[in-house]
């Protein structure tokens, strides 16, 4: 793989940063909404600390969970958002009539989302630490695999939703944004998944992020995160990435075969 291979990847990243530079409103989803979430949940955690009689500290549990879930959401929305820019600007024909390959395109989406998600993460960490005293030393080195699992699953969901929009048309955009909210009840962001009905627990165990939030609560309660659950969560996340790439490639081929891709610009007008 030579440097030439990465030029189209850089093109995808560069285009989004031109857009960010040219439109301040595009910075809002990068850090503004997550910052608002941190402030909101920071105060909720503080309030619960003040009214709780047990002396339990809600900050690392609630605020930490919100921060990690927002990071996951940012990654997923980051991937989908870069893809949607091409839908909105009716750019598919220009893009896919170029030598750009699908792996290069997906790498470009992921690279862009990585940068924007890291910016969001830094903003959240600074706010949570400075305003609400959240110390990430509580989680120790476990924070690294936690973030990695969230990142990988966010990427896989992002790629899946891109495939969905490519397959169903531009109006399917509205199915993209609520995806993290839809999965949140299953993955136990704020509660152990053991309190869920069996079928929901089953779904939860299939989703890698469940293992992150279960692990987070284990650490807060003074326990150790079982290595097996981290490996399972990581393994599932990798599997979903591979499945998402396969799914996108399949949808793309279908779009090329049936003419969806060639007509996508025209469909964007409707």
């Amino acid at each position, binding site marked *: 793989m030579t440097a*030439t291979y990465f*030029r*189209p990847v*850089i*093109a995808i990243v*560069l*285009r989004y940063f*031109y*857009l960010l530079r*040219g*439109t301040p409103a595009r910075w809002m989803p990068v850090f503004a909404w997550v910052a608002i979430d941190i402030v909101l949940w920071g105060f909720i955690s503080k309030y619960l600390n003040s009214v709780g009689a047990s002396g339990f500290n809600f900050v690392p549990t609630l605020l930490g969970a919100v921060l990690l879930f927002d990071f996951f959401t940012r990654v997923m929305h980051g991937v989908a958002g870069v893809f949607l*820019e091409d839908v909105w*600007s*009716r*750019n*598919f*024909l*220009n*893009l*896919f*009539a*170029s*030598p*750009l*390959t699908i792996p290069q395109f997906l790498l470009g989406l992921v690279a862009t989302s990585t940068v924007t998600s890291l910016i969001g993460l830094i903003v959240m960490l600074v706010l949570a630490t400075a305003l609400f005293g959240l110390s990430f030393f509580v989680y120790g080195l476990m924070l690294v695999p936690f973030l990695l699992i969230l990142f990988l699953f966010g990427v896989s969901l992002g790629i899946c939703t891109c495939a969905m929009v490519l397959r169903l048309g531009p109006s399917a955009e509205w199915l993209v944004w609520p995806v993290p909210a839809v999965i949140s009840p299953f993955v136990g962001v704020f509660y152990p998944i053991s309190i869920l009905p069996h079928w929901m627990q089953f779904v939860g165990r299939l989703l890698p992020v469940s293992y992150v939030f279960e692990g987070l609560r284990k650490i807060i309660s003074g326990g150790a995160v079982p290595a097996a659950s981290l490996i399972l969560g990581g393994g599932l996340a990798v599997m979903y990435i591979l499945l998402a790439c396969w799914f996108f490639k399949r949808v793309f*081929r279908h779009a*090329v*075969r*049936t*003419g969806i*891709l*060639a007509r996508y*610009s*025209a469909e964007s007008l409707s």
Partner: protein
Amino acid sequence: MAMDLTETILSVRDLRKAYGDKIAVDRISFEVSRGQIVGLLGPNGAGKTTTISMILGVLQPDSGSIRVEGMDLAAGRAQALGRTNFAAVYAPLPGNLTVRQNLRVFGLLYGVNGLAERINALIGRFDLEKFRNVKCGVLSSGEQTRVALAKAMINQPGLLLLDEPTASLDPVAAREIRARIRQFAVSGAGGVLWTTHNMVEVQDVCDRVLFLSHGKIMLEGDPKTLPDEHSQPTLEDLFVAVAREPLTQERT
């Protein structure tokens, strides 16, 4: 080094595409040589854009082959598309990027070496200096067409596909665009496949035309001599006659 003007840039063989029962392109074959401008004419729904889409790799043919500079599009999509470029009225460049930004992004997509110099040269050649840092969305139709053509030339393509490049342009701007494309072909840099409904334009710039109707090539030849050869006063009359022709005659 002298350009070989007999070199085949685009070779299309038995290309076919159907959408369900409707055959959009029906086993067409043609070639475009270096330095040649070939006009692809036909009524709406004749299969012109379907043909262009297949050559651009965004639509998979049911059968047949497409070779760009000898490279098979199906087997080496990225390589073949790296030697192709296009401009079409229905594929404007992102309006939220400036002229320079768009050219930079597409230059990277096409893996252009010495990109900064190439962008400067194109900005100069297409008279875009004062729009360098202007967002494409606010440019006039003529200016946007010039930017689209600059993008289409960014990789110094062997094959240039133009789908109604002068539609919606005033006569002065259209003439200017035709001159630039003619210049591209005459220089021997590549071959051009051009679709348009403007018969004056066809006679002005095309070396050869293909009349497409019902997905088939009905007629082929020199646009300056074709009307006489078919006892029609003008190319437009010939176009109308071919477009109305039921599928009785194929490729004369």
